[in-house]
């Protein structure tokens, strides 16, 4: 049994395993075992495994599944593979590298919650993943893992690939449901939560692609094995990544709770020659900066929060000494401003203001009160003041940048130019 289950069968230099090769390597054994259990037993297995959602929020997966009402009727499973968080490229590795793993996970998830239909919601632009997932689904139908009476049981499932029409908001789970219904991807008010009322008003489980990809391994090897993959409270492995001026940018599977230093220094090889480290966003664009004093932090949900940030997607973005932190912030906030869905006023009006202010600062046209404008938005767009987590997420890197790089912001104002250009 491998200690890197998610990537053990992924060989970047070749096409993904065919169905026969995947089966030969133990593929679909997790599904076969699941089908010998009751759906409730499958859910219990996943609950005991301590698997937590890999989409950013870390919600315990088995607990989420338990929220689906145990009554007959139409239910849905949606695999969230929207992956549009800047700095994030981990689900792509799984879907390009071993699509059957995610397909098998989706089937087991659907069995556990009693769904008859499942969708893989894939972001635009993942052309290779699209082709490979479509092929895996077709092969799974042909082999009887999908369709009517799967493997001779009473369980039937239709699994469809849905290509997103492109918008960051589609990744937020209730906005995703609106997108799947063909509407604008505005979020819905909660409650009701999707496990009770989701797609077309039916009970719906939305799980991240990496979350779902863990499920076949838990069923095949047992929940205890999964908890032992990590040394902390959250079981399993995690896909970590690094981008920016590091020596070897990439994505790696390591135990949940691996120290930040190990990912940065050993996996990413530290800084590229000629660049010095300043700070990093540990898990995509909507997490706050960490500095070198946080390098011993175990990368799990609880520890990163204690260190003052969030694990997020686990893919770090590294800021070097030759990149202007104000310019970087402008790039981040322009993204969020552009992707705001416009549903609530503080975000619709606030984010463009933040982006314009940063643009002016970066161009040398800033004034002292601009920093007050930015500080005010950090508070005004905090969690609870907006309809969804997009705007508070946007404020995480800004808030920490205003603290860490205050002197750099001020130099842009006093020198009336960007010191990096």
């Amino acid at each position, binding site marked *: 049994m491998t200690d890197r289950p998610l990537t053990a069968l992924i060989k970047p230099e070749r096409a993904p395993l065919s169905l026969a090769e995947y089966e030969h390597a133990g593929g679909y054994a997790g599904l076969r075992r699941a089908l010998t259990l009751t759906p409730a037993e499958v859910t219990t297995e996943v609950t005991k495994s301590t698997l937590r959602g890999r989409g950013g929020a870390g919600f315990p997966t088995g607990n989420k599944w338990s929220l689906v009402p145990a009554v007959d009727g*139409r239910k849905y499973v949606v695999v969230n593979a929207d*992956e*549009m*968080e*800047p*700095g*994030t*490229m981990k*689900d*792509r590795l799984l879907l390009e590298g071993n699509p059957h793993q995610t397909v098998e996970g989706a089937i087991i998830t659907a069995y556990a919650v009693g769904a008859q239909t499942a969708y893989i919601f894939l*972001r*635009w*632009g*993942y*052309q*290779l993943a699209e082709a490979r997932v479509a092929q895996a689904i077709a092969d799974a139908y042909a082999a009887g893992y999908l369709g009517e009476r799967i493997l001779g049981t009473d369980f039937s499932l*239709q699994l*469809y690939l*849905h*290509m997103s*029409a*492109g*918008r*960051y908001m589609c990744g937020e789970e209730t906005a995703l449901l609106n*997108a*799947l*219904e*063909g*509407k*604008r*991807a505005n979020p819905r008010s909660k409650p009701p939560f999707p496990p009770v009322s989701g*797609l*077309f008003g*039916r009970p719906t489980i939305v799980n991240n692609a990496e979350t779902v990809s863990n499920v076949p391994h838990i069923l095949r090897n047992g929940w205890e094995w999964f908890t032992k993959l990590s040394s902390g409270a959250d079981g399993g492995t995690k896909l970590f*990544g*690094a*981008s*920016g*001026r590091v020596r070897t*940018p*990439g*994505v790696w599977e390591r135990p949940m709770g691996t120290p930040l230093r190990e990912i940065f220094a050993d996996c990413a090889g530290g800084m590229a020659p000629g660049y010095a480290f300043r700070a990093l*966003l540990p898990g995509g*664009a909507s997490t706050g900066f960490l500095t070198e004093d946080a390098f011993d932090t175990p990368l799990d949900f609880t520890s990163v929060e204690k260190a003052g940030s969030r694990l997020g997607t686990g*893919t770090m*973005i*590294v*800021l*070097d000494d030759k*990149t202007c932190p104000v*310019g*970087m912030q402008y*790039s*981040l906030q*322009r*993204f969020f401003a*552009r*992707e705001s*869905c416009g549903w609530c006023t503080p975000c619709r009006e606030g984010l463009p203001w933040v982006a314009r202010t940063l643009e002016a600062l970066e161009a040398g046209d800033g004034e002292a009160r601009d920093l007050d404008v930015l500080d005010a938005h950090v508070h005004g767009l905090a969690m609870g003041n907006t309809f969804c987590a997009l705007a508070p997420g946007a404020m995480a890197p800004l808030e920490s940048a205003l603290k860490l790089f205050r002197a750099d912001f001020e130099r842009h104002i006093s020198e009336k130019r960007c010191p990096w250009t």
Partner: protein
Amino acid sequence: MLTEHEQHEIRAQMALYEQPAAVVPEALKLVQARRGWVADEDVRDVAAFLGVSTAEVESIATFYSLIYRRPVGRHVILLCDSVSCWIMGFRDLRAHLTARLGIGMGETTPDGRYTLFPAVCLGACELAPAMLVDGILHGNLTPERIDEILAGYE
């Protein structure tokens, strides 16, 4: 008018969802494949075919980034300007591309060959800086690399 083929494809999509109106974005993508963008008459055709109001289809068409409501060139370049690509040299590439093509962001070359758009993170950040040309991913870009890639397009 939607072609026979388009009607067929849209109907096939309708079978995958509990409610037919769910296929509006998919239908728009299908008609867009015809000439690379979605014209007003396409919006009306899709609305009529699906029994949804034109205003509704229009609001969906303008919401999603991949539906183009204005003509585009034969090849669409999406240059990532998000954070990892920004750090890895987006601005130099933008300068190179706009100078080489003689157009600004969001514009089409006079010969109709290229349209250049800024794009949000392409999920290829370990290969930053990156761009898509007609959906094909190119990473680890340099100005020289861009010249090589564009030499292959007519």
